[in-house]
């Protein structure tokens, strides 16, 4: 196994974890408003998936978007500043936690209406195909999104028009307080693909390498054959749905089971096993420094000026 790759994936996942741990702290200090949905526990999905994509590929997700933003290379300073509603944020404080953007990196947000991003992401991929580029799109969604109309319409069009898009259902077993068994009649969410039909796959979302190969195959299918894929990545969120949710609908044991094979822990141990403990500690330290700097930057940044409140409504 490529030691550099392991170190890189470890670094990227840890960066998300630490970013969000600090965000959680700032939220409890009431420095962040609105909802804050943490990605903690699911890092291997975004990091694994985006690590095998190209710069000209589009990335889109729902409101639990910090992880994908950072995994795509988004700036931690701008991300933290966005959470605090500052002018220096990745959406100049206009978006907030649910609506991160880094369009220069083709990270297209951050969307709040469950499932609505599914057809929109098809449109991103459609455009690349239209232009004759080899770019594709990847679209993340929750297990809660598979029953909504826009999911169906998006997948239906993607299959019908051979659109090079990858849909990744991040099945973290809950939609807010609703456990999956209440909303899906089967364990295998990828069967939704049979209706169109569309290629499908299932992957252990805690295994960053499995995610990589799964997405790699789907990306190849999209890029070479202009065909969509529906993937279910089984994963888990360690925290509540949002900071407001005490998550009483499950036991500590449930969570611990997933934490015991936490992808960051696993990769950290792997590095240590390679005899690279020094490197790992260096990474830990670098990340710590980056995130603390991001927090400082965010706190010191100015709020948008009141007279700009209507800016960006129109060109």
């Amino acid at each position, binding site marked *: 196994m490529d030691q550099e790759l392991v170190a890189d994936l470890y670094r990227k996942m840890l960066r998300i974890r630490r970013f969000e741990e600090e965000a959680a702290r700032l939220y409890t200090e009431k420095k962040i408003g609105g909802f804050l949905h943490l990605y903690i526990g699911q890092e291997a999905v975004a990091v694994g998936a985006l690590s095998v994509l190209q710069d000209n590929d589009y990335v889109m997700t729902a409101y639990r978007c910090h992880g994908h933003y950072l995994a795509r290379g988004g700036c931690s300073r701008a991300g933290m500043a966005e959470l605090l509603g500052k002018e220096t944020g990745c959406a100049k404080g206009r978006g*907030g*936690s649910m609506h991160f953007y880094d369009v220069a990196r083709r990270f297209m947000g951050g969307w709040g209406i469950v499932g609505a991003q599914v057809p929109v992401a098809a449109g991103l991929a459609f455009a690349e195909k239209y232009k004759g580029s080899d770019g594709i799109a990847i679209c993340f969604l929750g297990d809660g*999104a598979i029953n*909504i109309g826009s999911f169906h319409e998006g997948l239906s069009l993607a299959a019908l028009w051979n659109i090079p898009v990858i849909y990744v259902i991040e099945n973290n077993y809950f939609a807010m307080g609703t456990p999956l068994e209440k909303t*899906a009649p089967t364990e295998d969410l990828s069967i939704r693909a049979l209706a169109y039909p569309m290629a499908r796959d299932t992957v252990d979302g805690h295994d960053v390498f499995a995610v990589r190969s799964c997405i790699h195959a789907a990306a190849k299918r999209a890029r070479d054959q202009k065909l969509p894929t529906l993937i279910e990545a089984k994963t888990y969120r360690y925290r509540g749905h949002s900071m407001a949710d005490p998550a009483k609908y499950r036991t500590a044991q449930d969570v611990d089971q997933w934490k015991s094979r936490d992808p960051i822990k696993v990769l950290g141990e792997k590095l240590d096993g390679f005899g690279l403990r020094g490197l790992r500690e260096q990474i830990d330290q670098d990340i710590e420094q980056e995130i603390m700097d991001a927090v400082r930057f965010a706190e010191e940044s100015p*709020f948008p000026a009141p007279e700009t409140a209507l800016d960006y409504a129109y060109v």
Partner: protein
Amino acid sequence: MSNAMPSDTDTQSAVREIAIRDALQEAMTEEMVRDERVFLVGEEVGGYNGAYKCSRGMLDQFGPRRVIDAPIAENGFAGLGVGAAMAGLRPIVEFMTFNFSLVAIDQIINTAAKARLMSAGQLSCPIVFRGAGGAAFQLGAQHANSFDAFYAATPGLIVLAPATPYDMKGLLKSAIRDDNPVVFFESELTYGKRGPVPEGEYLVPIGVADVKREGSDVTLISWSKNVFLTLEAAEALAERGISAEVIDLRTLRPLDAQTVLNSVAKTNRCVIVQEQHEVASYGAYLAHMITSSIFDELDAPVGLVSTLEAPMPYSKALEVVLLPSKQRIIDQVLAVCA
């Protein structure tokens, strides 16, 4: 009728203070006890006791047959509710917030609201669509929509937008008993708001506005949570020697024009406070209704305090600029009274 304790049709004795979420829970629980045909469906309404805890304990009390956790499929469960209503049940459909009603709006506007007329009265659609409308603190553009005007503009619908715990309970009970489809707006920011609610059963009638504060210099009109803001502004105006009457519309459709016109005919000045953009808003319609009804009684054009014309930015520094504020109400009243 005073702000402290409205008394439409209540016949109860003791009074206590409860939060709006509990007032709503009581309304639904009482009606479900009273009428087997009533059931509640929506996301998180059961096991989670409601995303905003408006259905606390109801799953335990009524079981999963009547308190139904739905997947995220608003068009689906709204449409299912409409069908169930046509078949003789009386569904309460909860939207976690009305932002998400937009993916179900076709079922509300094209099916529920039109069923009775299209079938010449053969179909009846006694259904309540309820949930929070409007902005809460910093939820960003997609979670800060006010669709009051969309529904109020739709013939066939009853549209309710009460403010106080008392009115929430009494109107929700009336809504559940009404044979028309009802859209019922609550507010995320006021679910915890407490106020007097008597122990016994009472109803608040649909279509009747309530004078929440009497005054003589200017009529302030609002609905939903902005009634509280408007009352605060009225207090501040009192300190400046301006006596403001405050009308809580409670029902947007059908509008209680008489209560509104009586008040404005008395004060000759009017300011409407709404959490909506001004263009094609309910408040602008109301201003026109007043103006065209009693043009000659007006000493000044009706004033309007609205959300400014942009999608809602997240940052608190900007959100406060867009939303109606006490200061903007006061300024508008001063302008109208100048």
